[in-house]
């Protein structure tokens, strides 16, 4: 797991607070621990290695999206289009493997798997860039801009196959399109490849957030856009970056999902955006911008993922699962607010003591 939840600039204030404050700060970890302990008693086989790996694979998909979402939310925006980008990217990859690219002049170009993966990632980046440009250049509110691309991307995904599934993506030897399944099914040192990719992307994102100017700028823009602009930060560029990163993460998910299933379905990723937002919020990302960590978000994604998988294993109906998930999210935000208040009080008390 990441070392994270704490440590982003500005969150490590007032270290010597009360016990309650420290408990609240660690709430996401405590929640994770609680669900792990609870289900290891309540659900048989929960702690088996096979089950943990399977759950991690489920969690990984949401975690990718949630990371992209975290940066977006930290700048004060929102990206509703990620679920649709997952679907569109799955279709792009599937279509290229199965049918190649028809140039409309009697020729069809086939790409090899590596090229297809790069093209698909490019599509994710492109839609992210469209989101970013709509928001920065044309001043469309993030909610509306990404709601629009949500529909457009989903529509394009459906159009690409007339709503049908691209089945059986084994590819053809002569075009170099075989082996697509490795992405979803491959393993390295016993862990699924998807988990390794998640670890790499998460470490990179966490590093970017803390040790690169663009990462710091994301937090500054989210905390106070005007002050950031006046400090010479190119606000538009920062926003463009976060939406492109979010699109990139969604493209990864599209690739992994279609590779796992060896099929691309245009409805892939529906409502994924909501799970991603939930994970980010659960991990301490503030919807008003400026606060959030990649580590916290990953833990949040694990809490949500383990919660739903564990409830399935216990045989709880999916209707109740939704109710429980919703309650957990609300409680997380309530605790978050309580922590802010407590933290302020502790800080004021310290200031008073200092005189």
């Amino acid at each position: 797991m990441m070392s994270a939840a704490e440590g982003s600039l500005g969150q490590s204030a007032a270290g010597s607070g009360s016990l309650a404050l420290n408990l609240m700060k660690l709430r996401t970890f405590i929640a994770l621990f609680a669900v792990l302990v609870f289900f290891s008693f309540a659900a048989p086989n929960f702690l088996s290695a096979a089950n943990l790996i399977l759950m991690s694979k489920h969690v990984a998909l949401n975690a990718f999206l949630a990371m992209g979402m975290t940066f977006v939310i930290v700048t004060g925006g929102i990206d509703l289009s990620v679920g649709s980008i997952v679907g569109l990217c799955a279709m792009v990859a599937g279509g290229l493997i199965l049918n190649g690219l028809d140039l409309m002049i009697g020729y069809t170009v086939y790409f090899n798997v590596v090229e297809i993966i790069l093209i698909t990632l490019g599509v994710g980046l492109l839609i992210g860039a469209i989101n970013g440009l709509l928001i920065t250049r044309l001043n469309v509110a993030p909610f509306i801009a990404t709601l629009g691309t949500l529909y457009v991307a989903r529509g394009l995904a459906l159009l690409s196959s007339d709503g049908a599934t691209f089945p059986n993506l084994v590819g053809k030897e002569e075009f170099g399109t075989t082996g697509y399944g490795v992405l979803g099914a491959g393993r390295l040192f016993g862990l699924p490849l998807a988990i390794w990719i998640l670890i790499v992307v998460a470490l990179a994102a966490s590093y970017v957030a803390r040790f690169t100017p663009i990462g710091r700028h994301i937090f500054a823009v989210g905390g106070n856009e005007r002050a950031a602009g006046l400090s010479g930060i190119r606000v538009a560029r920062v926003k463009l970056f976060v939406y492109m990163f979010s699109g990139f993460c969604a493209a990864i998910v599209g690739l992994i999902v279609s590779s796992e299933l060896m099929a691309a379905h245009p409805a892939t990723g529906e409502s994924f955006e909501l799970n991603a937002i939930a994970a980010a919020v659960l991990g301490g990302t503030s919807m008003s911008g400026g606060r959030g960590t990649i580590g916290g978000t990953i833990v949040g994604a694990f809490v949500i993922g383990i919660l739903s998988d564990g409830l399935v294993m216990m045989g709880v109906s999916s209707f109740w699962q939704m109710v429980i998930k919703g309650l957990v999210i609300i409680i997380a935000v309530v605790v978050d607010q309580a922590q802010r208040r407590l933290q302020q009080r502790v800080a004021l008390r310290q200031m008073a003591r200092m005189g």
Partner: protein
Amino acid sequence: MSETPDDDVVLRLEGVSKVYSGTVAVKQADFDVRRGAVNVLVGENGAGKSTLMKIIAGVESPTHGRILLDGEPVSFANAAAARARGVGMVFQELNLFGNLSVAENIFAARELTRGALGIDHRRQERRAAQFLERLEAGIDPGALVEDLRIGQQQLVEIAKAVAQDARILILDEPTSALSAAEVEVLFRVIADLRARGVAIVYISHRLEELIRIGDFITVLRDGRVTGRARMADVDVGWIVRQMIGSPAKDFAKAEDHAIGAEAFRAEDICLPRLTGGYEVDHVSLSVRKGEILGVYGLMGAGRSEFLDCVMGRRPHATGRIFIDGEAVSERDVTGRIRRGLALIPEDRQREGLVAILSVAANLTMASLSKFLVGFHISSAREQTAIGRAIRDLSIKVADPAMEVASLSGGNQQKVVIGKALMTDPKVLLMDEPSRGIDVGAKAEVFRTMRKLAAQGLGIVFVTSDLGEVLALSDRIAVMSNGRVTALVERAEATEQSLVAASALGHGPGPSPLLETK
């Protein structure tokens, strides 16, 4: 200075003090409001006028002292309670709903209804039209407020207060956005209200306006009442003396140093106003290395807008700027910071700081590229720079990782200055650098400015505080109505001449143009 009989006094403040966390805004102030008269309140920015008025209007409650209304002690729980007792206030910052119509604004929170059938819009608009007619504003009561000019909006605000049948009407800088003709109308309305026995409290910086319209004058300085008189007994000189007090405020030049070559020059900076005319009207100014240029002027004179134009924050601005004699072609803030300009904005909370980030993050925000090794921010270099800034500016903070919001105003201002200095500027633009910080911190900020100038930085600072501009500047420019109306060496500047130049082109009367260049 004879006292009038007490029965004319409708509201009296006795020994009122107001303490905010850390700063005392008003100290032991006595203030009488007489009916059927214009009671003028005057003082520099931060003297406590607005706080005093907020106490009367029930927005703030006093920490000490009592309020007597018609001789009885009262305490207003909130603005609504004060309004119920007949106190109306027109705030300096407009409190209007841009998305509602003029009539809806005038009757906001006391809508005329037809019982349970909802708001009687037609009656509201008719009544609103009557009030507006008295103001001769030519405003359609059905128009949306956001479609009106600022001056018209101010008239709507005034109509709103008049419509409440206030016995005591507080006008805080009501003319700051009005044209000369609109000011005349406002004065007629005030005269009319006075004749009907309304007690008017009038706050303004424009001294000639006060002298023309006022009956009684009270002067505030640093939260204390320093003068009270009948207007007929006093003149501009007396007011200025009471406002500024002993001529030398305590931040006189600490060290003398050589002033070098020209560091910065702005030529013909223009910023067109949306409604015609210019907010910044062909302003040309220059500052040399090690020189402090004070830009004095009233609110709305175009000073902040000028700095904004120089900084590249107004895309419609025209004109040329030069640093060290070289033309600056960069049009955006980022590029201009890179060329060596830095702005300390007037509104620290909204534009200076990212409140939820740490002191450290705020300090290095604008200059992260300095600490890069490849694409990696070197913590060691960053921490060294943060430590140095905190030491150099003597920022009082236990741990740089603390949220910047937890610091006092003066220390927050030092963080903003530190952030600007980390970009290695050649020219520092400071907009009201002493706003909202207490006296001790002010002196420290001023000492810092002198020190920086001694190190060869060119500083342009904007202020509406006469004492400040006289004490700190090597040269003084006065702006009024978007123009530079005077440009004098410190030695040649007098309080009277600066005040006179700052009123040029404003308000009623002819506006002669004087270019002392």
